[in-house]
């Protein structure tokens, strides 16, 4: 009997492991295909079309990029850039710099996601608890998503050093944090609200029959029922947080983060055209790390749920 239990566990574990690796494997495959297409264009398709010197035209539109080292550096050059010193004579390599800046952005994006999640869930609780709040708040939420808030990024960055809240100086990274949080907050609030309202009337009636308070009902029924709704919301929110942070960094003022690094390396475009792509690779890794973190959290929180309903 013991043996059977052990066997079952082993089988289960194997299933889980394959299930976990599959999206990752597809991601790597997709990236590899993209890089291969890039190389194929600059090495063979471009020269064959004659676009080394000038942009290629399709039906009269200038559509195809120049297949030369300046516009489309080789993937292998990009790889080699990682090993070079950041600036001539510097002791830090490009690789170290990209890792450091990416890690910085990751910290900021995770903090933004956490902040957005707290505020989003808080708003969803208020909306689930009080219909008035839902009716009052929802229009603002929807409007806040229709205006391109990202345009405010350069503005909020200039608040650096000029705003002070209760002795807390508004730092430049605070802008990135707030923007990331603001962008991630909406999907969380909407997903959590749907989740909190998802229990069927019979379950709510059951809690009523125990004379459970609204808070007990929330903790023991509404919150756990919302977990499957929160997972996809977190995925959206995760990429929104990364997006908000990188755009803030890109919009100037900041001296840290992978967005800043793209700007900085772009300045050296002509001398080392492949260098900026190391920072771009950093953003790709950043997005993947974020997705991995959220997937791990999802797996953890839904470990006891029946499989195959939402994923």
């Amino acid at each position, binding site marked *: 009997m013991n043996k059977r239990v052990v066997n079952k566990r082993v089988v289960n574990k194997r299933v889980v492991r394959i299930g976990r690796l599959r999206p990752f494997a597809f991601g790597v495959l997709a990236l590899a295909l993209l890089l291969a297409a890039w190389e194929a264009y600059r090495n063979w398709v471009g020269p064959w079309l004659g676009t080394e010197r000038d942009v290629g035209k399709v039906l009269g539109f200038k559509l195809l990029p120049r297949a030369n080292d300046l516009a489309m550096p080789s993937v292998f050059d990009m790889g080699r850039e990682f090993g070079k010193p950041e600036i001539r004579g510097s002791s830090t390599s490009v690789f170290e710099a990209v890792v450091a800046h990416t890690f910085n952005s990751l910290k900021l994006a995770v903090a933004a996601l956490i902040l957005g999640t707290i505020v989003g869930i808080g708003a969803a609780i208020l909306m689930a608890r009080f219909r008035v709040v839902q009716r009052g708040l929802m229009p603002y939420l929807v409007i806040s998503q229709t205006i391109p808030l990202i345009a405010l990024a350069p503005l909020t960055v200039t608040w650096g050093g000029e705003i002070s809240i209760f002795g807390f100086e508004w730092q430049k990274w605070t802008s990135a944090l707030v923007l990331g949080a603001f962008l991630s907050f909406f999907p969380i609030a909407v997903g959590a609200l749907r989740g909190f309202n998802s229990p069927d009337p019979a379950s709510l009636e059951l809690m*009523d029959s125990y*004379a459970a308070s609204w808070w007990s009902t929330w903790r023991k029924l509404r919150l*756990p029922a919302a977990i499957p709704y929160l997972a996809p919301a977190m995925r959206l929110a995760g990429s929104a947080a990364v997006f908000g942070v990188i755009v803030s960094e890109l919009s100037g003022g900041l001296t840290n983060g992978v967005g800043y690094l793209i700007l900085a390396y772009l300045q050296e475009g002509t001398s080392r055209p492949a260098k900026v792509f190391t920072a771009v690779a950093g953003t790709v890794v950043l997005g993947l790390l974020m997705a991995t973190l959220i997937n791990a959290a999802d797996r953890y929180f839904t470990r006891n749920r029946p499989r195959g309903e939402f994923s």
Partner: protein
Amino acid sequence: MTLAGDALAVEVNGVHKVFNIGRPNRIDALTDVQLQVAAGEFVSLIGPSGCGKSTLLRLIADLLEPTVGTVTVNGKSPRQARLDQDYGMAFQQAGLFEWRSVAKNIELPLELKGWDKAKRHARALEMLELVKLPDRADAMPWQLSGGQQQRIAIARALAAHPLLLLMDEPFGALDEMTREHMQAELLRICAATQTTVVFVTHSIPEAVYLSDRVVVMSPGPGRITSIIPVGLDRSRDEGTREATQFYDKITEVREALRGNVANATDELSGIEDR
């Protein structure tokens, strides 16, 4: 087994329940309902769909309030009885929380009552023993069969030692074999715990097999048309289902239901003769 006539578990007095009052789609779900259930008694409510069985059960459970009339549960208002968790409830759907293990599902009412952890768990294991699933404490609900889930729901309803059990078609979704098995289990459990039961069903044999009295209801407007004492021996077993007296009672309840149809606008829908 105290069937003392003076101790009333449930008393329903001149109750009317109207839904959508003052609107064109007004429904008289219950009119002039009079019902007394003695402590320790097993009473079934039977009648065509829409005759107000669930509504009557919800009134007793204080999930609804009567438009006119009063309901008393264990000598208190239903609200007080609900706050005191005097009753346990079970529905047609087991309604287990899928994120809680079997034991944790049974512990839910105990948590809300503020029992400490060790006591809760001990009680959950005791209840699992009672519903004959002693080794499934750590299983998740979705790993159980429908009948097993239903047994867990009954264990949950009984966990907090309720004096009264309110059940709305709890075996409706089960196959015939499991159903008969569960009926025997329920009688055994109720005899062991001396619980009063108000039981809604669509099945005449089920009502006769389980009950001390069968309350026959009729729709449009919902009301009680007759109350039939079953008068079978309390210790029922599989032999009971073959006894002539059992068949006579089934016939009597069926005729009471037929009588309804003659003057009801609804057809006799959803009543099983099995």
